[in-house]
C-alpha cells in the first residue's frame, strides 16, 4: 500500500477511468496549479476494478462541467481543514467549447479561421454530443 499524505485544503478527484489521469490533468490545466498535485494510477476500485485518482492542493476554481463532459462517473471531494466537507456531483454540460475537434471535412470549422469548436448535448441518456455547426456526432475524443 502506497501512502500519500493527506491535504489540508483542496480536492480529491476520484474514480477517473484507469489510465485517463493525463486527460483530466491536461483539461483542468493542473500544470498551472501552484500547490502540490498527487497522481495515483491503477488504484484498486471495488466498483471499476482499477481507477486513477488526482489530489490537488488548494481550492482553485475547477471546471466541473468539463469534468462532467469527460466522464460523469468521476467524483470530486472538497477538503477543508483536512476534512471532507462536500462531494460534488457531476453532470453533462449542455455545451462544451474547445475540447474536441469536429472530424467532418465538410464542416465550416475546418475552414473558418478563429472559429471555436463547440459541441452541443443532444441526448443526455446516450451522452451524444454534436457539432453545433454541422451536427456531426462527436465520437470518442479521448
Amino acid at each position, binding site marked *: 500500500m502506497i501512502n500519500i499524505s493527506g491535504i489540508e485544503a483542496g480536492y480529491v478527484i476520484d474514480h477517473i477511468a484507469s489510465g485517463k489521469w493525463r486527460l483530466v490533468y491536461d483539461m483542468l490545466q493542473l500544470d498551472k496549479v501552484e500547490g502540490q498535485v498527487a497522481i495515483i494510477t491503477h488504484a484498486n476500485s471495488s466498483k471499476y476494478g482499477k481507477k486513477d485518482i488526482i489530489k490537488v492542493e488548494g481550492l482553485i476554481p475547477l471546471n466541473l462541467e468539463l469534468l462532467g463532459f469527460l466522464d460523469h462517473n468521476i467524483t470530486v471531494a472538497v477538503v477543508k481543514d483536512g476534512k471532507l466537507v462536500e462531494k460534488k456531483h457531476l453532470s453533462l454540460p449542455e455545451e462544451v467549447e474547445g475540447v474536441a475537434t469536429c472530424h*467532418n*471535412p*465538410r*464542416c*465550416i*470549422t*475546418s*475552414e*473558418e*479561421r*478563429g*472559429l471555436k469548436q463547440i459541441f452541443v448535448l*443532444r*441526448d443526455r441518456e446516450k451522452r*451524444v454530443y*454534436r*457539432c*453545433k*455547426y*454541422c*451536427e*456531426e*456526432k462527436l465520437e470518442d475524443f479521448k
Partner: protein
Amino acid sequence: MRHLLSPLDLSVEEIDGLIDVAKKIEKNPKAFRHVADGERLATLFYEPSTRTRLSFESAMLNLGGTVIGFSGASNSSASKGETVADTVRVVGCYSTIIAMRHHKEGAPMVASQFSPVPIINAGDGGHQHPTQTLTDLLTIAREKGRLDHLTIGLCGDLKFGRTVHSLITALVRYPGVKFVCVSPEELRLPDFVREDVLEKNHVPYKEVDNLEDVMPELDILYMTRVQRERFFNEEDYLRLRDRYILDGEKMKLAPQNMIVLHPLPRVNEISLEVDNDPRAMYFKQAQYGVYIRMALIMFLLGLEVPEV
C-alpha cells in the same frame, strides 16, 4: 432579429402563416409589388446555383426591393481567404437581408453570429436547405391540401441530400406522417436525422432499397439527385448515380393521386416522359418557391402583409 438556418427556426404556426401569405401572393401578386421598397437582398452564393439564387432574386424584385450579390466563391473575397464572419459583417452594411449558400456545413450559422441583418440559409453543404423545404411544404399544402397524415417516399441520395434532411425535420411536427426512405446502403440518412429527428420524435419510417415495391403506398414521392459535388471519390459517384430512375413504367405502380416532387436540378433520376404525367409537380414547385420566399423575406424583415 430572426434568421432561418434550419426549418426548426420556424414554429409550425409560423410556417402555416408563411403558407397563407404565399397563397395570397399567388392569388394577387400585384398587391405585393411595393411591400419591400427600400429593402435590399444580398445573395452570397459560394456554390453554383440557378434556381435558388434566381428564385430569391425574383422574390425580392417582386416585392419592390433590390438585389446585390455574387455567385461562385471564385467571384468573391473568399478566393482571397476572407472569412464568412468578415464577409457578412461587410455585406450587412450594404443590404438589409442576406441569403447564403455555402459548400461548408454550418457556414450560415457562423454568418448569423456576426451579421447585422437576417441570414437565410440557402443550402449549406450536405446539411440543410430550409427554404427548399418551405417550397416543398407549400407545394404539398397546395397539391394535397394538407401537411398531416401523409406517407412520403424519399428516394436517392438521402445521406448528402440537404433538402431531404430539412424536409424530414419540418414534417415530423405534423401528426400521422410516415417516411419510406429508398436508397442504396451507402446513401442512407445520416444519424443526425435518423436518431435525432425520426427516432427521437417516434416517427414511423423504414429504409428500403427497392423503389418499385413501395410505390403503391406513397402519397408523395420525393426524388433527389445523387450529387457529384458531395463525393470525394468519383468511382463511388459513378457507381451510385443511376441507381434509381423514375420512368413511366414505375409511375404505373403509383396511386393516381400521388405527387412527384424534386428539388431540381435533375440529371437522370426522372425520365423526361414523366414530365407530362399530371402527378409531376417539380416545375410547379419552382413557381411556389418564389411565392414562399417572398413570404419569408417579408416575415424576416417584419414587413406588413397587405390586405388582399
